[in-house]
């Protein structure tokens, strides 16, 4: 399978997985789920690192570093704030 076709296959299958995994979520968890998904797309940090690492010229490097900071905020902040929300739910199932 050539590169382009391979990526397209992965894309289409991921769409179905994405729909499937959240199809039975209760309203109670909408907010943490949104926040968790938000943290996951913070993985754009990998892209920001790759682009900055191959950038040349002051403007490009600076832009790359800005993207790296923004992506880190998205990823780290996202996971921490989601964990804080979910901390509130602990022990609930034991009641």
């Amino acid at each position, binding site marked *: 399978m050539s590169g382009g076709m391979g*990526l397209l296959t*992965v*894309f289409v299958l*991921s*769409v179905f*997985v*994405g*729909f499937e*995994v*959240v199809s039975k*979520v209760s*309203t109670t*968890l*909408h*907010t*943490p*789920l*949104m*926040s*968790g*998904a*938000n*943290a*996951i*797309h*913070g*993985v*754009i940090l*990998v*892209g*920001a*690192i*790759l*682009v*900055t690492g*191959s*950038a040349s010229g002051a403007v490009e490097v600076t*832009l790359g*570093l800005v*993207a*790296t*900071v*923004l*992506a*880190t905020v998205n*990823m*780290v*902040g*996202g*996971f*921490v*704030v*989601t*964990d*804080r929300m*979910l*901390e509130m*739910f602990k022990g*609930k199932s034991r*009641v």
Partner: protein
Amino acid sequence: MTKQNWVDLAYLVAAVCFILALKGLSSPRTARNGNLLGAFGAALAVVTVLVSADLHHLPLILGAILVGAAAAVPTSRRVPMTAMPQLVALFNGVGGGAAAIVAYLELPHAGSGFPLVASMFTIVIGSISFSGSVVTFLKLQEVITTRPVVLPGHPLLFGGSLLAAAALSVVAYAQHGTGTVATAAALLTAAASLAAGVLFVLPVGGADVPIVISLLNAFTGLSVAASGYVLDNVLLLVAGTLVGASGTLLTRLMAQAMGRPLTSTLFGALRGGSTAGSAGPGSDRPVRAASPDDVAILLNYAHRVIVVPGYGLAVAQAQHTVRELADLLAERDVEVQYGIHPVAGRMPGHMNVLLAEANVPYDQLKEMDEVNPQFATTDVVLVIGANDVVNPAARQPGTPISGMPILDVDQAQNVIFLKRSMRPGFAGIDNELLYQPNTSLLFGDAKESLTKVVAALKAL
């Protein structure tokens, strides 16, 4: 195995972590572990790229990551739970911004054909997500008005900015993404897209903002997926697509919880008619004010009490006081339950989080469908800092909240509103319920009022 094989394997593990994280987040028992698994996957991916890729400027990159983490961790730890929705919006926005910058930098190397299209797509969607999220943040922070804002010629401006972004993208594409013209076209595309993001969110009314956050979240996911395609990075493609797909579904579920199709949430104000709001039947009509003692007596002799908490309770940090009141009533054989509207607070599920923080027993929290049939046999309903979710105007056509499912509080024997003032709710419309003969109002900060009621109840 070659180095590339190991890298791909690590990315595969990270992708599986993300899928299991989303799956875990869908159920209360597994949610916290799910989130931790997602964080593990993300950390694995970052370490992998730092170790494996041939990177220039490594000290600068590590510095940038430290700066980002140093900014994000204290903010997310200290922000009050009530301000969480706007924080999530902001985090989403910066992610979209990062994706747009990555695509812009990658543009000259994208070559031609599909990857080039994907680059321009990322610039457009990432920029829309960034500026849209910032406007959402400002709305939720109440820096700008929460009412729908419609500029003169709004639909034309919005359509025009999208067309401009598309046309400029074509220019950049025709130049194969390289050279001064392509760079200028890409920057102008970003500018037009930023404008489109602002124009997209401005006409959305305050109560519908959470749905927009969810939609912009899905947008950012898609832009990350597209940038994964450009960079030939499977992990970004999978993670972005997962968020894009699940975010789209989640947005639809939220819109359903509000009882309205997504299009009317987003574009309702543009079609006109629904922004008139509170100008209607004047707010100087007489209402019945009650004292804390009146409220205490009413509660003491009730058999069944339902508490309807809203954003006002959250702002006043009154969740602990309300639990104290509920415990006191339970000692006196009064049955106490909480009626939780799906969008109580500022986001779906927000109120459950806040009450869980105050250790309110889970079995006392009733969802809307469960609690609605019970109002007719309820003696007292205590509405604390909520307004739109109990507003009967939702049952009539032609108001900003028409069609939104509400708690049928008006069927109860007595309704007590704890309110700071006669100011209308987040949706900006008057509440007919406030003027009914069986409604009384206790004005003041929710926490202070509740503390007085608790004291009065103890004295009885």
